[in-house]
């Protein structure tokens, strides 16, 4: 199996690029006028949560769980067919 060094060699530059994209995306949001919505808040919560994942959860699981609907009952009906990527409604 690959070592940590192998993983760094394989993925560091790609992850660095994606990290920069996230930073630039947040700057872009800051720079523009208007109000954000639940997606922005959920994104920031996920960023924070992934730094200290709960015991037994990976960082990826923590991000996905933070961006998930945790209600348990089936919805009465659907008002749209697509999804937003974070729980909430526009």
């Amino acid at each position, binding site marked *: 199996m690959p070592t940590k060094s192998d993983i760094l060699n*394989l993925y560091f530059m790609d992850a660095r690029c994606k990290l920069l994209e996230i930073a630039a995306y947040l700057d872009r949001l800051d720079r523009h006028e208007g109000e954000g919505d639940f997606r922005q808040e959920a994104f920031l919560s996920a960023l924070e949560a992934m730094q200290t994942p709960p015991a037994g959860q*990976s960082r990826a699981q923590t991000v*996905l*769980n933070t961006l998930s*609907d*945790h209600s348990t009952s089936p919805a009465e*009906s*659907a008002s749209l067919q697509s*999804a*937003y990527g974070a729980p909430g409604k526009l």
Partner: protein
Amino acid sequence: MHYIEPHGHMVSRTTADYESIAQAGCVALCEPAFWAGYDRSSPAGFYDYYRQLTEYEPRRAAQFGIDHYCWLCINPKEAEDPSFAREVMSIIPEFLDCPNVLGIGEIGLNKNTKNELAIFEEHLEIAQKYDLPILIHTPHLEDKLKGTKLILDALKNANVDRGRVVIDHVEEHTAPLVLDQGYWAGMTLYPISKCTAARAVDILETFGMEQIWMNSACDWGVSDPLAVVKCALEMKKRQHTLTTVQKVIFENPKEFLSQCPNFKVNQLLQ
């Protein structure tokens, strides 16, 4: 290296895509019934779609040495109108004897509604009545976790044979729920909204190589018919042996699909 594409929506793809996946080693492709990107206006639209899946696509695939199989259902995105869905479901038995039909799928949930759940449960009844395997779609993004849990509850209530059910589009948070309960899991390599190749390999390394496959789910959206072989390359970069790669992209889907009475290993491999 040869592989099986266990989930591709080829009605939305060009013949050049069949040629590309054949060149990459694809020997069999399974096409679940799917949403067309718009709601069909009548059950007759589904009748024609099922004919396309059972007559036309197998011929198109065969030109490139690919065996084409399909799964039949009404997709959960069109299950919000139960009377319409039931009319469509009444057509399905007429097609179950077609030689490339594998079972019932991709059924499941989309927005996790009561109507979707009712139609999902009725699809399970059809599968059980005709003793067919089941392919399940789990919802997208924020709806996936809840939908997966509702689906697992419904499957438990229906007392299905877990080894004959594959639950698709798993990600890091749902893969263990599915695998721990004895179902098969499918990972979809779909840009932006599902798994990347690197994450799919992470899931394999974390949860194991058993009862799991990966697919491109290539359709009319931004998707890649070559995603499975690209993920195979990702596995090689992570130093997985060719035997392991071949297990995930060929032996595993073959093992599950061999439970479908109509599935046969491509004669080119015999």
